[in-house]
């Protein structure tokens, strides 16, 4: 059994807004194994960013944790004071944000920005930290590092800036790296380079990664395990092969099916829009958009049904005695592949 480095239990987070309480995270539990990459996929507003922000103590002021635990090294991160957070953030748990254009300080030399966490957390001297920063810049593939260490963020392209952000996040060799859509703002070729770099560095630094994205292609290449999030809940989770070749929740089917494949003539769009979390649905949150929904989906929330030791899905279709449904052709093709792989 791999060691669990992070254990999130029954997390519930509300946002206070003028319109009322938005129930952004509704009873989410998961864990992160040592050295793995867990991808959380979902649409905007599904709560994937809020979940990660709660793990690094960066929730917005109007957010309120309504319950649950985030256990890391025997302590519940939700109990920490801001002072205690500052010892962990950027040190044991670090984060890469989506937009490399806004996550760097425009008035600071990049060498200084990369060295800062070392000086702050590890008590390293300025000179030594500068040398380490230079080393890190080379490791993330910034050419002419000796010269560029004295430059400012505006002198770098988007891809190079994201490399700098990664250098800052990894300089203290964190145990957990949170990556919130780290390549969404980048071109495909640059994205491919950054993803390769992250995989490479993960092996070297032995960090565990929580990777947030809505791009299933990126997930297929990066993740060891995948969790599918919708309307503040997890609907399905498993290994990357479980999710891509043996998906069970109709929402996962819909996500996979809405991407163009080589044979598709028409895209199978998921109709409708996600529910309003001011007044979250009682049953399966995907039921109103789900062509396979049964009466019970609207009335009662499905529990997680176990498919294997790694694979769980919250859909009534897996309940004993549930009617057999025929999933879309693309999903059947994937199921056949999964069977052949066993």
């Amino acid at each position, binding site marked *: 059994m791999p060691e669990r480095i992070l254990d999130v239990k029954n997390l519930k987070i509300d946002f206070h807004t003028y319109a009322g309480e938005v129930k952004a995270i509704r009873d989410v539990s998961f864990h992160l194994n040592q050295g793995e990459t867990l991808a959380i996929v979902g*649409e*905007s507003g599904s709560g994937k960013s809020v979940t990660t922000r709660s793990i690094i103590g960066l929730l917005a002021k109007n957010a309120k944790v309504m319950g649950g635990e985030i256990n890391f090294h025997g302590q519940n991160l939700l109990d920490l004071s801001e002072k205690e957070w500052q010892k962990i953030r950027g040190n044991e748990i670090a984060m890469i944000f989506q937009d490399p254009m806004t996550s760097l300080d425009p008035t600071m030399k990049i060498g200084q920005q990369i060295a800062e966490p070392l000086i702050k957390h590890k008590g390293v001297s300025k000179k030594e930290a500068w040398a380490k920063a230079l080393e890190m810049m080379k490791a993330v593939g910034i050419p002419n590092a000796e010269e560029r260490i004295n430059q400012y963020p505006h002198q770098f392209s*988007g891809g190079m800036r994201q490399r700098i952000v990664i250098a800052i996040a990894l300089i203290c060799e964190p145990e957990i790296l949170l990556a919130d859509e780290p390549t969404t703002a980048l*071109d*495909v*070729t*640059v*994205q*491919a380079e950054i*993803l*390769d770099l992250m995989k490479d560095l993960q092996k070297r630094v032995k960090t565990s990664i929580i990777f947030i994205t*809505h*791009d*299933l*292609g*990126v*997930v*297929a*290449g990066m993740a060891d395990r995948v969790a599918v999030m919708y309307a503040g809940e997890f609907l399905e989770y498993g290994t*990357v*092969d479980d999710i*891509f*070749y043996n998906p069970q929740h109709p929402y996962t089917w*819909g*996500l*996979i099916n*809405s*991407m*163009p494949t080589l044979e*598709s003539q*028409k*895209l*199978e*769009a*998921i*109709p409708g*829009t996600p529910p309003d979390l001011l007044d979250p649905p009682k049953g399966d949150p995907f039921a109103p958009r789900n062509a396979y929904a049964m009466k019970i989906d609207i009335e009662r929330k499905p529990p997680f049904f176990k498919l294997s030791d790694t694979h769980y899905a919250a859909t009534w279709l897996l309940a004993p005695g549930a009617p057999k449904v025929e999933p879309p052709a693309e999903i059947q093709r994937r199921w056949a592949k999964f069977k052949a792989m066993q």
Partner: protein
Amino acid sequence: MAEKKALLQVKHLKQYFKNGRQLTKAVDDVSFDIYEGETFGLVGESGSGKTTTGRSILQLYHPTSGEIIFDGKDVAKMKSRSDQLAFRRQAQMIFQDPYASLNPRMTVEDIIAEGLDIHGLVKNKEERRQRVEELLETVGLNKNHASRFPHEFSGGQRQRIGIARALAVKPKFIVADEPISALDVSIQAQVVNLMIDLQKEKGLTYLFIAHDLSMVKFISDRIGVMHFGKLLEVGPADDVYDRPLHDYTKSLISAVPIPDPEIERNRHRISYDAREEFDGKKRTMHEIRPGHFVRCSDDEVAHYEAIAQSYE
């Protein structure tokens, strides 16, 4: 292929921008045709000039040189106001950012009907209202939404409003500049399907600009690949995607993530060295296979023909 009519011809389009003393060649000698009723996909990375090309075609910039011939007429030589208005009615645009492209102070009805008013296409308020309601239903929105403001809609719904606005004046040709990249995956498919349905129904011609190659391949009949302001390769969508000729196209395709773990585990990325574009050789478009062009010098033709052969 021969009997197809070119609705739009772009000939040696150059669009330079002066930035202080620096001259930026955003689009540099680009030529292509778009046939009536087809979707032409233009792909490239940020800074490749694909958006500028789209905007220059619609005369949102004044091209430095080159011709844009729409329906047999040179757009730049249209001097009379009525000719210009007629062109702008027939050629419309759908923008990338559904949040920035709708005026937050206007109701949906006024946004959609603005073109109708400018071109005098409706006679009275009653007709205007009716037309807007029709358009809303065409793009899959509720007709009662006409009196609402943009902030009351989600991203996908806003993009539908943008499409309704473009359709209002019954155009022949629409430039869609990254119309889905700001949307979620499940909503992207909805908008793409809507665009395809509308094309079939109304016989529209699209210039679809995007960086998402898999989506471009899906929606386009033909694809053009741009890099550093130059068009490097043009051809039928399947040819360009499955049998790419130019090294840059190959690198671009090899970088597209595929939602299949097994394919991803065996991915081989092809890197591209852009220096060959700057070796001073004179390059023009050469037809290597029927309808499939690549930008190369005369002595490189044999090299590309060999690549094309290897796919047979």
